[in-house]
Structures are given as structure tokens and as C-alpha cells.
């Protein structure tokens, strides 16, 4: 047997390209279904665990998947906004804790999540350095954001311009990083956190500027009445919140009417949850969703896709099998004379056949080991890959 293996190995080593093509084809064929299964498994666990840890979500009526994916993973299209008043109403009902989320903007491509301090406690997030966003303008980076952008406490980060061609659009806000979160292995690692009021400043609802009542620069005054001073376009609007100008930041209008993307609702009891669900079931403009159910629905679609993939893998396997058969047949034709020589020297036909089987066996074994190694690597790196994807 050792002698046959030596002969086979020598043949394979000499015909490197042919052997490599066979090995790569078989490895890919073996690895693909494993890869899809592993990735979907991780994806499912990742999605499900976050969804299951979030009891209820309130948002505007519309696409349920967008609302849940945006609220849990800060990804997907921006759903319609609801008002901060909904969060206050839920909190005031005494039936649940309400955590507002404002997720409409980005800083250097990373989603800005405007929320309250309750969010960090609810998600079990802790700072690795610095502090949580305690005041307007304070910014806390998710672990991966800090690593990827090489930023830390004391640095600044600019919000992304929303429109290059709209001169009326809000200027990017320079935000001061006051903390970096410890890694959590969740989408929170990839987000930029600010207080919800800071998010409103980013949106342009709140702003800070020169105190017109105290300014001596008459050039920036457009109109001065008894109780009102109106500035003109020369008035300086702050694009950075600092200790010197923080007091000048203010909001026009009632905070309860300000927009939030969604509200995470953590009911006190099942009864409270039922009552709240009942209340929102008749709401004309808002919906209350159970994230776990929505994700389950979503995974149903993913699993259907996986079944489709599995069906196509059968075709891939069949194609690979035919390819291997073709290669073996061509190889037999090419090696016919060599086989005949072996027979003439004194080798049995069965030994000649065994050589072919040994070659296929070695190719299959190497492919299996390679596929297993790749699968091992995939299992190892799957959490990171799922996050990246």
C-alpha cells in the first residue's frame, strides 16, 4: 500500500496543476455548503440574540423589517420618524422604560445613535476609556469605530455632510470624543453614540450662535424689536460644541415634538407589555413590534434562501462530480500507455486500478482537510465576518 501511495504521490506532485485544480474544485464544493450553513447559523444567532434581548420597539407605521433592523443594527433604510412625545408617554404610563433612538446621520460613515443613558445600561455597555455622553456634544465611540478610525478620548469627529449641493443644509458638527466603549461583539461596536439632544443639533433642530442681545456687532443684526432680535446671515452659528459656547445651544419648539427613529420599550411586566401592544394596535401612525418575531420572520426568508442554495449545491456537486469523472477519464486515456507498461512489467490490472483510486482518494482527502481547515477558520472568524457583512 505504501508503495502505491508513493507512486500516486509522485504522479500528483509531478502533475501539480492537474492535482491542484482537482483539489481546489473539490475543496470549494465541500466548503461552500459548510460556509453558507456556518454563516447563516452565526447570522441567525447574532440577529436572534439581539432581537430577543429587546422586548418591544415602537416606530412609525411602515416597513417592519426596516424599523427593526434600524433599531437593532443601525442598518437599513431610515424609517419614518415618530416624536419624542411617544417616548415620554410610554414612560409616563408607568408600564415600561422607554429609550429613544435617533439614527439618521453618520460620522465618517459610522451611524450616529442619539439616545439616552438608559440605552447603555439596557445593553450592558461599559466604557473602556472616558465617560458616557453626559452633556451636549459628548460623543462615545463603539470599540470597532475607535479602532478602525484610530480615534480615542480627546479626539474629535465630524458628522458627515448630508448634501453637498444644498447651501441651506446644516453644517457638519465637530463632536468631541469623551469615551470609547468596551468591545461587546454587537452592532454597538460599530456605532457613534451621542445624547439624543446632540443628535437633534446634528439634524439642525437645535443650534448655538452668538448672543444677539449682547453683541456689539451691529452688522449681524437684521431686526431688533422689544422682545426679539433677529440676526442676519452674517451671524456666526457654531459648528462645534465647546465649554465656552454650550450655554448658547438651544432648541426652538417643544421637545416632545422632536423626531426619533424609534423607541426601545422595556415593559415592567407581561401585562404591561400586553396593554401597550393593545394601545399601539389601534394607533393610526405608530406600530409596536416584537423584534424577536420580526427577526424570526426574516430568518424564515433567509432559510428559504439557504434551501435554494442547498438545492443549487446539489447541482454544483453533480457538476464537480462530472468534472472529476471527465478528468479521470482523460487521465486514463493519457496514462493508458503507462498503465500498459506497468502491466507488462508485472503489475496486476487491479493494482493499476488501485493507483487511480488512490489518486482520487488522496485528492479527496486533501480537499476534505482543506475544506475542514477553511471551515475551522470560518467558524473562528464568523462573528467578525457577520459584523462586517
Amino acid at each position, binding site marked *: 500500500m505504501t*508503495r502505491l501511495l508513493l507512486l500516486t504521490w509522485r504522479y500528483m506532485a*509531478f502533475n501539480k496543476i492537474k492535482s491542484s485544480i482537482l483539489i481546489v474544485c473539490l475543496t470549494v464544493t465541500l466548503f461552500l455548503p459548510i460556509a453558507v450553513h456556518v454563516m447563516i447559523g452565526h447570522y441567525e444567532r447574532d440577529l436572534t440574540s439581539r432581537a430577543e434581548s429587546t422586548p418591544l420597539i415602537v416606530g412609525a407605521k411602515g416597513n417592519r423589517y426596516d424599523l427593526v433592523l434600524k433599531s437593532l443594527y443601525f442598518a437599513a433604510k431610515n424609517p419614518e420618524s415618530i416624536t419624542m412625545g411617544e417616548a415620554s408617554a410610554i414612560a409616563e404610563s408607568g408600564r415600561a422604560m422607554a429609550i429613544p433612538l435617533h439614527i439618521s446621520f453618520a460620522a465618517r460613515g459610522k451611524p450616529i445613535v442619539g439616545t439616552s443613558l438608559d440605552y447603555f445600561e439596557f445593553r450592558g455597555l461599559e466604557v473602556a476609556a472616558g465617560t458616557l455622553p453626559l452633556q451636549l456634544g459628548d460623543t462615545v465611540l463603539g470599540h470597532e469605530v475607535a479602532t478602525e478610525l484610530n480615534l480615542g478620548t480627546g479626539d474629535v469627529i465630524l458628522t458627515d455632510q448630508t448634501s453637498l449641493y444644498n447651501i441651506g443644509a446644516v453644517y457638519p458638527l465637530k463632536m468631541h470624543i469623551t469615551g470609547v466603549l468596551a468591545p461587546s461583539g454587537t452592532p454597538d461596536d460599530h456605532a457613534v453614540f451621542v445624547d439624543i439632544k446632540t443628535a437633534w443639533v446634528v439634524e439642525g433642530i437645535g443650534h448655538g450662535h452668538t448672543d444677539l442681545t449682547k453683541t456689539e456687532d451691529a452688522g449681524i443684526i437684521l431686526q431688533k424689536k422689544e422682545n426679539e432680535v433677529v440676526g442676519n446671515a452674517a451671524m456666526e452659528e457654531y459648528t462645534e460644541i465647546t465649554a465656552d459656547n454650550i450655554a448658547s445651544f438651544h432648541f426652538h419648539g417643544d421637545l416632545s415634538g422632536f423626531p426619533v427613529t424609534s423607541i426601545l420599550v422595556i415593559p415592567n411586566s407581561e401585562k404591561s407589555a400586553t396593554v401597550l401592544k393593545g394601545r399601539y394596535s389601534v394607533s393610526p401612525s405608530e406600530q409596536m413590534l416584537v423584534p424577536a418575531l420580526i427577526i424570526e420572520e426574516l430568518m424564515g426568508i433567509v432559510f428559504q434562501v439557504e434551501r435554494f442554495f442547498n438545492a443549487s449545491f446539489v447541482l454544483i456537486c453533480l457538476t464537480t462530480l462530472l468534472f472529476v469523472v471527465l478528468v479521470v477519464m482523460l487521465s486514463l486515456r493519457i496514462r493508458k500507455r503507462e498503465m500498459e*507498461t506497468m502491466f507488462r512489467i508485472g503489475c496486476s490490472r487491479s493494482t493499476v486500478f488501485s493507483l487511480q483510486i488512490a489518486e482520487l482518494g488522496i485528492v479527496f482527502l486533501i480537499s476534505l482537510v482543506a475544506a475542514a481547515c477553511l471551515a475551522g477558520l470560518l467558524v473562528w472568524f464568523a462573528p467578525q465576518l457577520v459584523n462586517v457583512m
Partner: protein
Amino acid sequence: MKSHAIEISDLTFSYEAQGFELNIPQLSIAEGKHVAIVGPSGCGKTTLAYLISGIHVPSGGNVDIGRDSITRMTDGQRRDFRISNIGFIFQEFELLEYLRVEENIILPYLLNASLELDKAVYERARSLAESVGLGDKLHRYSGELSQGEKQRLAICRALITDPCIIMADEPTGNLDDGNTDTIMDLIRNQARRSDATFVMITHERHLLDRFDDVVDLAKNGGRNSG
């Protein structure tokens, strides 16, 4: 040493599809003799060599080597007999390009588990290679050798089992005159050294005076009815 005279009687063999028929009523090759088999193309020289070696099975008659009857052996017995007792040198060398020189020499041992592959075999391979001037090329692939070197390698492979019969099918057919003389001397010397019977198929008439006997198949042998 076991007797290895070749005795053929009433041997018949045919390729029906090609309308070829070989008839050898009687042929004796004495032990240790150097015999050339000649004849025109298609007369059955190679077929006769294959029948003596047990590669082909005759449709009638007997081939005896010493006390062993090749024709009465099973396929497996014929293979084992061939690999142990007959060293075959093919016209086209028939070397395995993916094996190195040393591995090509010991190929019979790699192909048949009935032969014991031990250190002595490797030493013998090295010694054979040195005797034919391939001692410094043991780790080269056969494809890297010249035509003359390839034929010398094929000779080493045929001799590695120390066979009592050396069959050579036009071993010099692809060689120039200089290489032909070298190869002929080499095989004959090796055959003499081991007291082996040497049967060579050739169409090169000028080589015939080097043999003890010449069998002309044109006179008594194969004919093509087509």
C-alpha cells in the same frame, strides 16, 4: 540456479480482428544463450516476446521456461513469474516521467508487493545506475535524460530483479550507431554477468553476429492473412 531454458511447442496465437496469426511449431532457446529474433515488420516478433513473457496468453501450444509452464499458470502466477524472472526492455523505453531515475529502476518493486523492497534493492539500483553511467543522475526525472541515458535506465529497470531471462524489444531502434554499440555491449555484459538468457528482437541485421543464435520468424512464424 533454476533452469531457464525456453521451450516452445505448437504455439499458436492470433489477433482475429487484424487477421494476424502466429504459429511456432517448435523453438528452443538454451539457458544462458544470446538469441536474436528477426523478421519483417508485422511478422510477430514482439508478440512472440510477449508470449514468452506471459504478457499474452497463447491460443494453443506451450511455453515452458525451465520446469515452469507459462501457459498453465494463472494470470497472477504469470505476473509474479514475469516480474521475478523476466527483465523486459521496451523499444520506447516506457519510463515513468514522474519518477526519478532511482525510482524508475526499482519500479518492479513498487508495482508488485510479492517483491521485497529493502535497503539492498536501493543499493543494487545505485550500483546498476553507476555501472551504466547514471550514478550521478539518480535524483533526476527521466524526462531530463538523453535518449541513450533513457535506454540505459530502461536496462537498469529490467535488470533490477536480477532476472534469468532478459527480453529486449528493439532496444537500439531509437539510438544512433554509437549509442547502439554501447547499449548492446551493456546488455550483453550484464546478461553474461548474471548468466541470463538474452532474447532480443531486432531488425538491425548488422547486430546479428553478436548473438549465439538467430530465429527468423519470416521463415517459420507469423503471417498476416489480411
